[in-house]
C-alpha cells in the first residue's frame, strides 16, 4: 500500500521546524511503523538528504526510547502499544499520516522527532529508590508479600519512562510517570520506610522541572502504552497530602 507522510523536521532546538511531506511511501502491511521510517530514510540517504532523526532501540516496546505523535496521538492509534510495536496493517492504503515529536516545554526538541527527556531521570534521582547499599540485604524470602500487592506494585513498575503521558496531557503534567514510580515503591514493604520523604521530594522535583499541574483529564492513561492506571495518581495525591501534613507538625 501507499501512504503520504507529513513529518516534523527541525534542525535543532534553536531553529524553527515544519512539517515536510513525503508522497507515495511504499508500505508493506507487516512492517512495523519504525521499519517504514527506515525505508523512508534509506530513500533520503539515496538522494543524499538528511534522514529523519528519531529515537528507538529495543523495538520491542520495553526501552521507552521511541516517541512519536502519530496523527495527534502519542504512539499512534493502537491501545497499549508503543510506536515500535505499531504495525502498518492498522493503516489504510492512501492514508495521510502526520508524525510529530512528543511536545512539552520540559522535553526540548533536539532534532526532528528526538526530544530531551532527561527531566525524568532527575525526578528519579530526587528520591525514586530504596536506600539499600549493595550487600546490606536480608534473605529475599524473609518478608512475604501478598501476591495481589506484589502484582499491583509490578504493574506500576512496568512504566517504561517514555513520556507519552506528558505528551498526551493538555497541561504537560508528569503525574502519571511520577505516581507510577511512587506507587511501585510505596506499595512494597521495602519501599514503605522512605515513602513519605520520597513522595515529597519527587513531586517537588517534578514541579521544579516545569511539568504542568494535573487537572484529571485522564488523557495520560488513555495514551500510556503500558496502560499504567490513573489510580496511581490518586494514590500519590493521598500520600503527598499525608506527608505534607506530617511535615508541618
Amino acid at each position, binding site marked *: 500500500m501507499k501512504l503520504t507522510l507529513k513529518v516534523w523536521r527541525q534542525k535543532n532546538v534553536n531553529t524553527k521546524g515544519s512539517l515536510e511531506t513525503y508522497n507515495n511511501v511504499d508500505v508493506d502491511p507487516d512492517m512495523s511503523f519504525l521499519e517504514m521510517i527506515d525505508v523512508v530514510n534509506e530513500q533520503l540517504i539515496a538522494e543524499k538528504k538528511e534522514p529523519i*532523526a528519531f529515537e528507538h*532501540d529495543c523495538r520491542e516496546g520495553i526501552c521507552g526510547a521511541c516517541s512519536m505523535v502519530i496523527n495527534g496521538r502519542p504512539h499512534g492509534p*493502537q491501545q497499549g502499544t508503543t510506536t515500535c510495536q505499531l504495525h502498518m496493517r492498522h493503516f489504510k492504503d492512501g492514508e495521510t499520516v502526520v508524525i510529530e515529536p512528543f511536545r512539552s516545554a520540559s522535553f526540548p526538541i533536539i532534532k526532528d522527532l528526538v526530544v530531551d527527556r532527561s527531566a525524568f531521570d532527575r525526578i528519579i534521582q530526587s528520591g525514586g529508590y530504596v536506600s539499600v547499599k549493595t550487600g546490606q540485604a536480608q534473605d529475599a524470602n524473609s518478608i512475604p508479600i501478598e501476591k495481589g500487592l506484589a502484582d499491583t506494585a509490578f504493574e506500576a513498575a512496568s512504566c517504561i*519512562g517514555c513520556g507519552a503521558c506528558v505528551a498526551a496531557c493538555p497541561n504537560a503534567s508528569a503525574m502519571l510517570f511520577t505516581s507510577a514510580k511512587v506507587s511501585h515503591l510505596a506499595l512494597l514493604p521495602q519501599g514503605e520506610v522512605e515513602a513519605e520523604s520520597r513522595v515529597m521530594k519527587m513531586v517537588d522535583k517534578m514541579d521544579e522541572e516545569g511539568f504542568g499541574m494535573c487537572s484529571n483529564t485522564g488523557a495520560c492513561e488513555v495514551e500510556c502504552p503500558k496502560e499504567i492506571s490513573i489510580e496511581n495518581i490518586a494514590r500519590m495525591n493521598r500520600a503527598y497530602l499525608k506527608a505534607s501534613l506530617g511535615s508541618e507538625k
Partner: protein
Amino acid sequence: MGLDAKVPPGPLEDKWTKYRSTMNLVAPNNKRRIDVIVVGTGLAGASAAATLGELGYNVKAFCFHDSPRRAHSIAAQGGINAAKNYQNDGDSVYRLFYDTIKGGDYRSREANVHRLAEVSVDIIDQCVAQGVPFAREYGGLLANRSFGGVQVSRTFYASGQTGQQLLIGAYSALSKQIATGSVKMFNRHEMLDLVVVDGKARGIIARNLLTGKLERHAAHAVVLATGGYGNVFYLSTNAMGSNVTAAWQAHRRGAYFANPCYTQIHPTCIPVSGHYQSKLTLMSESLRNDGRVWVPKKKEDVMAIREGRMTGGDVPEEDRDYYLERRYPAFGNLVPRDVASRAAKTACDAGHGVNKAGLAVYLDFAERIKELGEDTIRARYGNLFAMYEKITGENPYKTPMKIYPAVHYTMGGLWVDYNLESNLPGLFVAGEANFSDHGANRLGASALMQGLADGYFVLPYTIGQFLSTQIRVDKIKDDTKEFEEAEQNCRKRLQAFLDVKGDKSVESYHRELGLIMWDNCGMARNEQGLTEGRAKIRALRDDFYKNVFVPGTQEEFNPELEKAARVADLLELGELMMVDALDRAESCGGHFREESVSEEGEAQRKDKEFTYVSAWEYFNQNGDPTLHKEELTFDNVELKTRSYK
C-alpha cells in the same frame, strides 16, 4: 604464550570466600582520591557504578543512551537464576555450578563459574531489597520457573519483563549515587577510544552525541560493561544500538578478544517477515515450559500450510513430529538453546518448515490451554502472547506460534582473569562484554545473573587488587600526548567516514555483513564457508571505505555517523569471528563445525586439542590476529559428552 587467569589456590568451594577476605583493600580516605570510569550502564555497568560509588570511589559513568534505563538489559524477558533452593527441589550452589559448566560444554573456567553460583543468592536478596517486584506465590513467597538445560526450578522472574525490573532496580541504585555526587553520569556519550598510558588503561575518548564534541576523560582504572556484539549479524534479538565499539577499540589498544566465535542462536524467535526487517523478536525460553515444539511429518501437510490451504491446528496428532520430545526424551522441550536451535534447523532443512520461506516451526500451547485454561496461560505469558500478536497479527491462544532460531547472545568478549581484569592492567570488563562464565553456550536466565554478579558482588572488590597499587598515583592528567593522540585518532576516523561521500548507506553494509555472518558463521559452520566468509568480509570492508555515504558533519547530533563508526568496527570483528571459528575445528556448544559430529549427528567436542580459551591479539601487519591460549583445567568435574537424551 599461555595466559594466567590468576585463579586463587585452594578447594573450589573456598576459593572466593578466602580470596575475598585476603584481597588488598583501599582505605576510605584513599578511595575518595581514586577515579574510576565505568563505560556502559546496563545491568552490569549500573550495578558496578552504583556499588563503586557506595564504596567511596569517584565514579564517572557513560552510556550512549539518553538514560541508563534504556540499556539493552531492559529487554530481558524470562528471568534470572539463583541457587536459592526455595522450591526445595534439590538445587544447590554446586548444582548451579555444574549445570553451567555442562551447559557451556566444558569450555568455561571452573573457579569463575563456582563464584557466580555462590553470589547468585545474594543478587536476589539485593534486588528484592531494592523493590524489584518478582513474581510471588499465593503465600507471598517468591515464585520460580524452569529454564532450558536444567531439571530444577531456580529462575526468578517478573512476568516476561525481568530485565526491565532488574535494570530499574540497578538504575535506581545508580540514580541515588548520582544524587549524592559519588557518580557523575554522562548520558548520550559514546566511548570511541581507550587511552593507554605506560601500559595501563587510564582513560577514554568519548563523543558527546548531542554536540559531536570529543571529550577526554581520565581515571585510575576503566571498566567496560558495554554489552554484547550479536548485531554483527544485523538481524538479532539485540536492541538496535547494541554494538562492539568500546570492546573493539580496547582490543585495538591491546586487550585480547576471547572466543569471538561463540554465538548463541536462540531457538524461539519470531521468524523473518520481509526484506525490510530491522530486528528479530525473542519469544522467551520460558514458553517452552508449556509450549510443545513440532513440525508436520508429511510434506503434503507442509505444502498445504505454506500455501494457506491448511493451518497447524488441522494437522492430526499422529502426523505431528514433536521432534525435541522424540530426540531428547529426558529434557524434551527444555533442552538447552544450542540443541533446540540446531534441531529446528534440521527439521527445516529437511523441508518441514511451516511458513512461506520454509524457515519456521510450531510452538504450540493448545494442550496446556486445554489443561490449565486460557487464564493461567495468560497470567504466565500474557505480555509475550500480546507481543506476538502485535507483530504477526495472529492470535497464539488460537493458533500455534511460528518460531525460528535467531542470534541472541555472544558468549565471547574481552578476555578477563579471575579479577575481571583484562590483559591490559587497569582495564576491567563486566557483563556480556567479557567472555567469562558461559563457555560455549549460555544457559537461559544466566546472563542477568552474571551481569549483576559482576557488577554488584565481584568487580567492586576485585578492582581493589589493582587500585590498592595506585593509591600513590596522582590524578591522571588528560593533557598528555597519549590523550592527544587518541583524540586525534578519533577525529580522523570520523572524518574519514564523512569524506568518502559514496552512494551506499551504512545500513546497507550492515545488512550485507549480517548475511555473510549468518550464511558462513551461523548455526552450522565449515572450513570452506568460513574461509570464503573471511574473504567476503574483507572485500565488503574495502568497499565500505570507498563507497559509503554519511551525511552531515562531526560537530552535530548525527546518528548516521554514529552508526558508521559502529559498523566499521563490526566489519573487523566479523573477520575475527571467522578466524576463530576456523581455528576451533571442533563442535562445542553454540559453535557447530560440520566436520566434527558424532554418529548420531550431535556436536562432537575434541577435548584433547581444544580445551582452551582462544584469546586473540589484534591483527598484525599481515592482517592476521595472533592467538594466545588459556588452557582450561577441570579439577572438579569430569568432561563428558553432553547428553540431554
